[in-house]
């Protein structure tokens, strides 16, 4: 009896081993996101989205029958950890491509690692430095800050406002925004009359706004991510600031309206189209992608997918496209990503080339205004 049992067992395990050997090995993709730490508002939706997309792909049978295995690590927004984990993905997990990191700082730290290892990486961070100058193995999906700045300045020029005050947060997001605001001001004939900053953990910005109120500024542009801009909105209301307030795409989520409350009314900001997907005309190329993303995210996580998760959606989808066009090695995947033309994703319509690894133009942004706790398009 016992002999029979053991024979059965051996036979069974042999079959198991054989069936495993026959199934194609999964394609390994690495992901680095700042799931904890100060940038978790980026990393968490990004990780969720990446996991969701991979789930959907595998459920549909993978790409050409090959499943995808996603290996995600949390950088905590710490550049040192990001470097270590990138090394781990490449050397231990042998991934063929990496998506992320979430922040510009983490991305800049990881770039030398992927360049040397020749592994394609699609960053989800916005800093213009990432793809300017172009690095052979590095792409990005988040819209450049410069595009958001251009969108705001165009509107100001239309309204013939020439004097603005800027109030930026002193972290990498704010610093990059500040740089772009200052760099592009002259081209739009705009004069920056007050240039102030605030700390990411500050709880009161009335001092800066009082200074702005005392200046000749015709508009305020605040560049930061939650909760700072919500405090700015509330403080502006407290001080009775009458000039229009512009924010960055860093606060383009319902959370901002929730935090700022009544003070959010009338505030304008440039954002990717995901916030206003329903308001877009049917002819919009991105509409299908946007609606798919929003629907899937709601199904998986029971909350609304946001702008930031969209960066990871685009990155995963670009990889999927590249792989389904037959690329399996890192070099081939890189080549196929660079050959992407007119891919309508969440952040915009991507067209990469050897000279452009950011892939978007300023149509990626629309200008919205907060009205009655919701978003309306500014035409």
């Amino acid at each position, binding site marked *: 009896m016992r002999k029979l049992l053991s024979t059965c067992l051996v036979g069974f395990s042999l079959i198991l081993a054989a069936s495993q050997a026959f199934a194609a090995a999964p394609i390994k993709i690495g992901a680095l996101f700042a799931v*904890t730490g100060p940038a978790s508002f980026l990393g968490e939706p990004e990780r969720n989205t990446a996991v969701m997309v991979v789930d959907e792909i595998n459920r549909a049978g993978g790409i050409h029958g090959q499943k995808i295995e996603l290996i995600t690590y949390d950088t905590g927004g*710490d*550049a040192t950890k990001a470097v270590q984990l990138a090394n*781990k993905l*490449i050397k231990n997990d042998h991934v063929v491509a990496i998506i992320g990191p979430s922040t*510009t*700082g983490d991305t800049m730290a990881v770039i*030398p690692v992927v360049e040397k290892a020749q592994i394609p990486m699609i960053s989800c961070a916005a800093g213009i430095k990432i793809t300017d100058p172009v690095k052979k193995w590095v792409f990005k999906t988040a819209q450049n800050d410069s595009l958001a700045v251009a969108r705001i300045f165009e509107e100001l020029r239309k309204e013939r406002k020439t004097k603005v005050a800027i109030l930026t947060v002193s972290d*990498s997001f704010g610093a990059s925004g500040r740089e772009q605001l200052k760099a592009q001001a002259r081209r739009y004939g705009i004069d920056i009359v007050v240039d102030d900053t605030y700390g990411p953990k500050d709880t009161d910005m009335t001092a800066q706004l009082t200074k702005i109120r005392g200046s000749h500024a015709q508009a305020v542009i605040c560049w930061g991510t939650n909760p700072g801009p919500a405090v700015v909105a509330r403080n502006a209301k407290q001080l009775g600031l009458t000039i229009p307030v512009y924010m960055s795409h860093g606060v383009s989520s319902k959370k901002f309206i929730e935090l700022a409350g009544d003070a959010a009314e009338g505030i304008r900001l440039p954002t990717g189209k995901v916030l206003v997907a329903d308001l877009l005309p049917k002819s919009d190329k991105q509409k299908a992608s946007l609606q798919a993303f929003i629907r899937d995210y709601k199904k998986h996580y029971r909350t609304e997918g946001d702008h930031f998760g969209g960066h990871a959606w685009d990155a995963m989808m670009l990889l999927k496209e590249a792989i389904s066009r037959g690329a399996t090695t890192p070099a081939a995947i890189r080549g196929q990503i660079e050959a992407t033309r007119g891919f309508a994703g969440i952040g915009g319509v991507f067209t990469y080339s050897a000279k452009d690894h950011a892939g978007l133009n300023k149509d990626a942004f629309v200008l919205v205004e907060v009205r009655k706790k919701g978003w309306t398009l500014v035409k």
Partner: protein
Amino acid sequence: MAKKKKVALKSDKIKFLVFCLVVLLAPLPFAKGYLSNVLIFVGVNSMLALGLNLLLGYAGQISLGQAAFFGLGAYGSGVLTTQFTMNPWLAMVLVAVSVALFAFLIGFPVLKLKGHYLAMATLGVGIIANIAFNETVDLTGGPSGLSGIPNLSIGGFTFDNDLKNYYLVWGFALVAILLSLNLVNSRVGRGLRAIHDSEVAARVMGVNARIMKVQVFTFSALISALAGSLYAHVVTFISPTSFSFAVSVELLTMVVIGGLGSVYGSILGALLLTLLPELLRAFQDFDIIVYGLLLISMTIYLPGGLVRGIPELFRRLVPARRGNA
């Protein structure tokens, strides 16, 4: 007595040589893997933990601003080599000397303080340094960081892969360890321990407590600055988040877990905490909780750190068993 001391010194030498051998061979099994990369950071952290331990474990002076010296070293090297295209080695020496001088100067007023006041003052220094890294955008690149820092090289030999960098960093770390061992076993070391136990008694015995504390503070800043320079040249990118208050706390944890007042304890602490994220990956998001629990329970139950705690535990268990029999 003298003979005993000689024997002790000899065993110290053997210990150090064995340790050197371990360091030399450690990365070979994973030369191609990712672990050799982690071991570089273990080296950097060892230097930092060592610097802090000299101050904390031997002189009993707490510092919550150790990341400031680390950051000054890294930014000093980073800025001088990228913005002013200075020779990296020259920059490293220049930076180390200036940071040491800076520490020497602020050491006098800072180390006059005690306990919580000292903690607060060093914390203040750390925060001011971090703000300076963030705000001097033209020089440091501000919050977005500074990239394009060159790798170190000697003649035509460039330290451009993990294994080379491992030996570079650990070469420095071993020298730092050797110097620290000598310092600890010297007259200064004994004076420091006296200060730790009772500063008043030490002063009565003729120990110039003030000068001695400042000397150790300076030496500890020097090691940290060197670690910073090495970090900058190995990673080739630096940003202010790598030198924040959280990093100072992490260093403190390394020293406490490894063993206060033990040179090898610092290295053990650095090794464990650098590998901890790897070990805690099984806990996923719970790692921050495990981290906090470790810090509390270690301080309560193993105040001597692992270096002393493990033999102690062993000793306690063995006689207990004998008693039962």
